[in-house]
């Protein structure tokens, strides 16, 4: 960010309104030179009961464990075992297979809309596996991996995406805006950011009950500009809510780069300093670092030390959604040049180096993931894709209230159901 400030100050002779610009647009050379990456193992791991003053440098480092030689290093190495990471890798492969297949399905008109997670798989898989079944996640729309990690049926994901007769949300929701209390996955909505305070409220409720389960909430870096985000952080800090608030900084908000959300001026983790809570900045493509940060924040929350803010530094490798074409606003090859690499490749290389994985097993796992997804989606297609099958129209009138009032009963009557 220092760089940008400098450019700005020198370039600026007479007064004008400053509009932040990304380092490269279509046709330009990709340029990630303004991203400063500390080496793996560089950022120290404070005690979970460390006082506010001790934590002030934390948001300006970056928690990284996987070195270029693929070994894990530094005091942020997680307590989890490579067995856990193999499980995470498999979830990430499943996530990728699901994304690819559904993206195609949308192009084939089998659904109206889809969003890929590519490059961010670690941010769903690791937290979902690292946290407890009774912890609740308040996700963004790019976190299907959380459900996959907890065994939510892929078939049911497809049923919802096709809005067919077996849609678990009875056709009321957009594809991908899932909900499953049983899997610790809070109801999504099209509005970005408006559930982040619910995560804090949920966590306050757990503390109120004396229960040591916790909540974790996610928000995109672009959405941190919403007032909801500040209000959630304020309540989390004031009441020491047992919650982990995570900013997925994938550098883009549709066509707007992170500078439009303030990312040129400081880190998103630095927001934590305004609330006196720890602000961790984590290499989001390093599954072990993600896992370790969640472990630390969860332990802290369960012990009653309150909330933690985590910035996951990553990159949205694909378009925003099936409605978006990123080559309109950023260089084609941007994702490939991302300095933090690909989370699947990096985890794979680490596990192979450690002897817990090999190329054959990996190839087999990739095949298995593809086959599992294909089979599940085939089942859903059997019930019907968009338009070919849908839930009973009665469902349109259900769940407005616990009990329908006369308006709903009359209106149901008007269309004779």
């Amino acid at each position: 960010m220092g760089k940008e400030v400098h450019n700005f100050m020198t370039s600026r002779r007479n007064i004008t309104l400053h509009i932040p610009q990304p380092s490269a647009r279509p046709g330009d050379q990709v340029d990630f030179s303004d991203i400063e990456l500390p080496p793996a193992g560089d950022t120290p791991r404070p005690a979970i009961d460390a006082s506010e003053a001790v934590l002030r440098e934390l948001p300006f480092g970056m928690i990284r464990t996987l070195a270029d030689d693929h070994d894990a290093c530094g005091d942020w190495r997680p307590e989890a075992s490579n067995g856990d990471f193999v499980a995470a890798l498999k979830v990430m492969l499943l996530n990728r297979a699901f994304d690819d297949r559904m993206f195609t399905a949308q192009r084939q008109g089998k659904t109206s809309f889809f969003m890929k997670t590519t490059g961010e798989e670690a941010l769903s898989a690791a937290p979902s596996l690292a946290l407890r079944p009774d912890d609740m996640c308040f996700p963004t729309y790019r976190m299907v991996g959380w459900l996959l990690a907890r065994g939510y049926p892929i078939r049911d994901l497809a049923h919802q995406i096709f809005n067919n007769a077996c849609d678990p949300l009875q056709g009321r929701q957009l594809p991908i805006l899932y909900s499953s209390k049983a899997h610790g996955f809070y109801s999504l909505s099209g509005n970005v950011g408006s559930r982040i305070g619910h995560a804090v409220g949920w966590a306050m409720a757990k503390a109120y009950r004396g229960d040591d389960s916790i909540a974790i909430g996610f928000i995109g870096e672009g959405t941190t500009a919403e007032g909801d985000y500040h209000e959630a952080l304020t309540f989390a800090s004031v009441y020491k809510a047992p919650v982990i608030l995570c900013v997925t900084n994938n550098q883009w908000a549709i066509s707007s780069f992170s500078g439009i959300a303030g990312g040129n001026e400081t880190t998103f983790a630095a927001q934590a300093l305004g609330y006196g809570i720890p602000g961790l900045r984590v290499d989001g493509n390093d599954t072990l670092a993600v896992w370790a940060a969640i472990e630390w924040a969860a332990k802290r929350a369960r012990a009653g030390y309150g909330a933690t803010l985590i910035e996951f530094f990553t990159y949205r490798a694909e378009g925003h959604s099936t409605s978006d074409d990123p080559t309109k606003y950023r260089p084609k090859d941007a994702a490939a040049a991302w300095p933090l690499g690909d989370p699947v490749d990096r985890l794979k290389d680490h596990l192979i180096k450690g002897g817990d994985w090999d190329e054959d097993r990996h190839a087999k796992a990739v095949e298995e993931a593809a086959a599992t997804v294909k089979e599940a989606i085939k089942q859903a297609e059997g019930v019907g894709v968009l338009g070919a099958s849908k839930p009973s129209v009665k469902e349109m009138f259900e769940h407005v209230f616990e009990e329908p009032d006369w308006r709903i009963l009359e209106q149901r009557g008007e269309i004779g159901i």
Partner: protein
Amino acid sequence: MPSMNMIQSLNNALDVMMARDPDILVFGEDVGYFGGVFRVTDKLQERHGLHRCFDAPISEGGIVSTAIGMGAEGLRPVIEIQFADYILPAYDQLVSEAARLRYRSGGDFTAPITVRSPYGGGIFGGQTHSQSPEAIFAHITGLKTVIPSTPYDAKGLLIASIECNDPVIFLEPKRLYNGPFDGHHDQALKAWKDHPDAQVPEGHYTVPLGQAAVVRQGADATVLAYGTMVHVARAGIEEAGIDAELIDLRSIVPLDIETITNSVRKTGRCLIVHEASRFAGFGGELSALITERCFYSLKAPTQRVAGWDTPYPHAFEWDYFPGPSRVVEALQKLMED
């Protein structure tokens, strides 16, 4: 049976419910140690504990959003927004989240929250301590909106709202907190003491949501009102000397359509009275419903008495406030037609 003003009966409702159900907690600006700027939460912290009635940051959006999260978890938060004028920063949370959570999650998550807030004018509060926002909630599918007009109803309706599994906007007519107010601002203040509707049982009881009260029987016209305007309308009816039936809606969602239509079919004339500004106010919906359901019984066009289509002006409180004289004029016009 003890006599309570509306502040006391609301306080008593909260006290009774907090004693019955450990899942109920109360928070909002200044509601904790201090007991609320209108004293509705007085002593609740002392009686039920620090964590069951506490102060919140000045963040209406944060108050509502954390309450929704608590409600989804299974608690029953009862939150106070200090003035209804200040609900607006939380409007998105109420509309996009509280009202829609059950529907979009197929019943997987719900928001059983109660949002208490003093509303309405007549207290020299100026533009931002006097507004009546019910119309912007009535339009929202998934929200219930309740407005009491007496201490007895206030307690029974608040308990029913807290026990309701849907989100409820509970608007308290602050001009009625300390006494019934019929709009005659130049007359001596009346207290609730000795008023029949101020006889409030100590224990648990409910006034069901969606049931209007016929507070005055009449044959020649129907007057629909809620909150402060129930008292103003009663005064207007008596001063006009017209045998009008006065219906206190008590909740506008759910709306007691049967009681309304039965009365209008009987009287053939209807006057709607609310304090909110007139254009696109809730009176419009009531008038439309009556046209659709009672057209052939109508002897005269349904009339509305409401606040003017201006912001609430401090120095012109009594020029703006739809008082008894405007009700009288409207009734006379209604009967002439």
